[in-house]
């Protein structure tokens, strides 16, 4: 994800730089213009290094937060305000027993055993209606395969900058 972006970014940066150098060098200019162009290219080189450094930093910083999510010690999913899964980390794919691509767009409540689903949704609707920004409750989790298990669902809302809910962060932890 981030790594690919960063690779693409740097490849583009190099392509642009080489294109410019090529264009300028292939022209026969008078000595004064030639000197001006060479100076411009040197300045370009310096800025390019700086630019590369900055884009690497941007990419590293982004990658760092991606890892914090992906390797969070517990199952971590992010849903929209309707409870549909938008993101899932590694522990979540292990706990729920599905690949990330299969988890996305599923309502999280489909992983709650049927007899517990109404109670689960009641908690969830209560959070939305009362605009609570965090809550936790227990429910019986039903992974894609295997036996159901008791789990603690903790949630916290990501506020939108203006109003409402930008997303819901859920940690799901089996109860021994």
């Amino acid at each position: 994800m981030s790594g690919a972006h960063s690779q693409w970014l740097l490849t583009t940066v190099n392509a642009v730089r080489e294109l410019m150098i090529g264009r300028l060098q292939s022209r026969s200019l008078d000595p004064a213009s030639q000197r001006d162009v060479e100076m411009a290219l040197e300045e370009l080189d310096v800025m390019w290094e700086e630019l590369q450094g900055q884009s690497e930093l941007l990419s590293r910083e982004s990658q760092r937060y991606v890892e914090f999510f992906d390797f969070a010690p517990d199952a971590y999913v992010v849903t929209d305000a309707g409870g549909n899964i938008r993101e899932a980390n590694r522990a979540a794919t292990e706990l729920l027993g599905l690949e990330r691509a299969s988890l996305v767009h599923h309502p999280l409540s489909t992983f709650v055993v049927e007899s517990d689903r109404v109670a689960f949704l009641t908690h969830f609707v209560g959070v939305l209606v009362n605009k609570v920004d965090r809550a936790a409750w227990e429910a019986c989790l039903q992974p894609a395969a295997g036996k159901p298990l008791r789990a603690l669902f903790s949630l916290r809302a990501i506020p939108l900058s203006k109003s409402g809910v930008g997303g819901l962060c859920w940690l799901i932890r089996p109860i021994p």
Partner: protein
Amino acid sequence: MSGNDSFELFNSVKTVRDLLQRKLDGGAGHAQGELEAGLQEIEALWEELRQRADELTAERQRYSEFFEYAPDAYLVTDSHGTVRDANRAAAELLGVPARTLAGKPLATCVHEDGRRDFRAHLVRASAQTDGELSVWRGVLLGPGDGLLPVQFRVRALPVADGGLAPLCWLVRRT
């Protein structure tokens, strides 16, 4: 890195482009037409580059929010347990601003009686480089030195060169 740095990135891009435009306007003589065509190609690539940088910035923002708004206290430390990042729930649990936690050994937030035990667990957790979860209980010092019984859930981040891995901590009251 902050929004400032990405602003600087765009600024540098613009500076380079303007600089080249100026040099070409002044000194390229008969090569003007060819070089202008080159500049146009560059502008198109530049626009793509800017969009990629926007995407990276948006991705960073999105995932940093997942850290910030994790429902439980979430801290990232180095392999010795010195705090590098702490989220809102961590700051709320310990009753201090998140920024004051950075650079602090997490052991200093643990009740004195349990500190030796905490350090032993920490050493074992940072030796778990296979991504296994380490779980143990302890007592933290909360606001006003109140005692907070908690469970620590710790996983080491993978490192490419087999070096010392940062540790991800979820801490929840028991």
